[in-house]
């Protein structure tokens, strides 16, 4: 696989990495005919994120030469801490980097990231990868009966009332009100915790389709990366969910990319009060499949 990013594309790619780093310590790089998919999952398998950059996003995008597998090249697993620092400072990337070339070299098990910077400087980074099976979340978001759509700005305004350290929050949806409350976790003294509730009218959403009153509790921390990405690109966010206990999917898309975060939700969500201990979130069902399927098909 060989791809070339130019100018602003490098910054967008970096921002996607930042969002994925909120989820897990490893990054799966999956080049396919549909585009380059970047995926991450957390250790508890309760959060999964995927960013799919279509070939149109790149200046140049090609999969492996004829000598490699026909359907695409190999799926690479990289440590987030080896690739994230390359894209850490987005402002300096914006100022200095003109082009970025990413290629996968199978014989040497390396992902080569080259930054072509101003003043004729070229920075080449060689990152070792582990060949891995593809990572995919088995979650049919299009089959979810409940859908909310809102500009990223609205969701960001809702979550800003909660501290960045807040782990779980509960989204309560009724035909008249949508509210977010922080969820008190096990181990934290309920008497000492500050409770915040923020609510608004469903009219504020661009699209609101909810069949039954519902309380969904999920991890906010893992979602913030996607919200920040969506806000910087002014993309609307879709929220697809069915019932408590089943995963919720937050997704954004535009002409050249699609991104989604799938989060597990608490099974017994009537326990919203502070006196109830938290239960472990049911893991999102992840399928580690041997073939390289396109991300879109499963999602």
């Amino acid at each position, binding site marked *: 696989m060989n791809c070339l990013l130019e100018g602003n594309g490098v910054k967008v790619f970096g921002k996607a990495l930042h969002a994925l780093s909120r989820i897990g310590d490893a990054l799966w790089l999956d080049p396919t005919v549909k585009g380059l998919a970047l995926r991450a999952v957390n250790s508890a398998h309760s959060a999964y994120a995927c960013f799919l950059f279509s070939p149109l996003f790149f200046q140049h995008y090609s999969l492996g030469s004829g000598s490699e597998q026909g359907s695409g090249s190999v799926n690479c697993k990289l440590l987030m801490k080896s690739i994230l620092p390359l894209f850490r400072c987005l402002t300096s990337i914006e100022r200095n980097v003109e082009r970025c070339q990413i290629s996968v070299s199978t014989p040497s098990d390396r992902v080569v990231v080259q930054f072509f910077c101003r003043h004729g400087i070229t920075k080449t980074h060689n990152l070792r990868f582990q060949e891995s099976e593809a990572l995919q979340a088995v979650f049919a978001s299009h089959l979810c009966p409940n859908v909310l759509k809102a500009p990223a700005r609205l969701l960001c*305004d809702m979550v*800003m009332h909660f*501290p960045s350290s807040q782990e779980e929050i509960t989204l309560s949806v009724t035909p008249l009100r949508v509210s977010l409350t922080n969820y008190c976790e096990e181990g934290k003294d309920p008497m000492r915790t*500050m*409770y*915040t*509730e923020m*609510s608004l*009218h469903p009219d504020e959403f661009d699209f609101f389709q909810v069949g039954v009153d519902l309380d969904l509790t999920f991890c906010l921390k893992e979602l913030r990366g996607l919200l920040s990405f969506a806000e910087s690109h002014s993309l609307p966010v879709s929220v697809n969910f069915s019932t408590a206990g089943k995963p919720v999917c937050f997704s954004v898309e535009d002409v050249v990319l699609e991104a989604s975060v799938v989060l597990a939700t608490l099974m017994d969500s009537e326990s919203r009060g502070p006196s109830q201990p938290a239960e472990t979130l049911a893991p999102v069902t992840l399928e580690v499949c041997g073939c390289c399927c396109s991300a879109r098909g499963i999602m």
Partner: protein
Amino acid sequence: MKFRGKIVDVACLNHVTRVISTISKLTKTCVLRLTADNLFFVLSGKVANGGVSMWCELSQANVFDEYQMEGVSSEDNEICLEVTPENLSRALKTVQNAKAVKVKLTKKHCPCLTIAAELPTLSSISRVVTHDVPVDVIPRRLWHEFKEPSMPDFDVSVYLPPLKTMKNVVDRMKNLSNFLVIEANLSGEMNLKIETDLVSVTTHFKDLGNPLWGDDASQDGGPSPSRDPEAMAQARVDIRKLQQFLMGQQVNPSKAMCNIVHERVVHLILLHEDVSLQYFIPAVA
């Protein structure tokens, strides 16, 4: 015990948020005393916080548009609560663009100060935000611990140099030593000194001016008319306590003073608009 207050003016809201934010940088928990006319944030000097104590006073009329307070009893018409100022600060920061903010003493899962606000939106129905900040009610028998501190019998009183400059100096000195000596005299001079085995560093400030405390002191305004104006009064303090005080200051106060009781205590006083903040750092050997 009852407390309800309403803040409608955005400047008042900014003002109280800034004060509470400063307090939150000085201490993790403190006592909030609500009286008919004032709000006090008090930290009483205990071994746990290295003997540092704090007293911050502001007038409730400059914050609240509506204020109802019924204290513990009619003779003791005040409410004393132990709070975590960081929680209050965080709650208030999220509602800065609200049309009105209501603060109430409530009983939820425990006693709380509930901050509730309506936020403006483009649609006809506002967004509502509520923060329940847990507090602990301080019983009357402990109120004596949170009384206004008396002015110490200081040896020297001097105006502080610009806090930002002081902070820069102290930040760098902290890398070299854990203790710092503050000394000043009645000729408007102040020195900040550190000394280690390898190096000693002194920063000199001149022409700071000395406040005139007047009233029961002599006509020159000094605490003792016979005191040599060049003689330095000093106190050796834990540098981190001084640094913490300087880090919290967000606004340049209209008046900033330092009273030193030789080898006993450093008493810092900041005055800005209607807010007064006093901070006592004990001297160490």
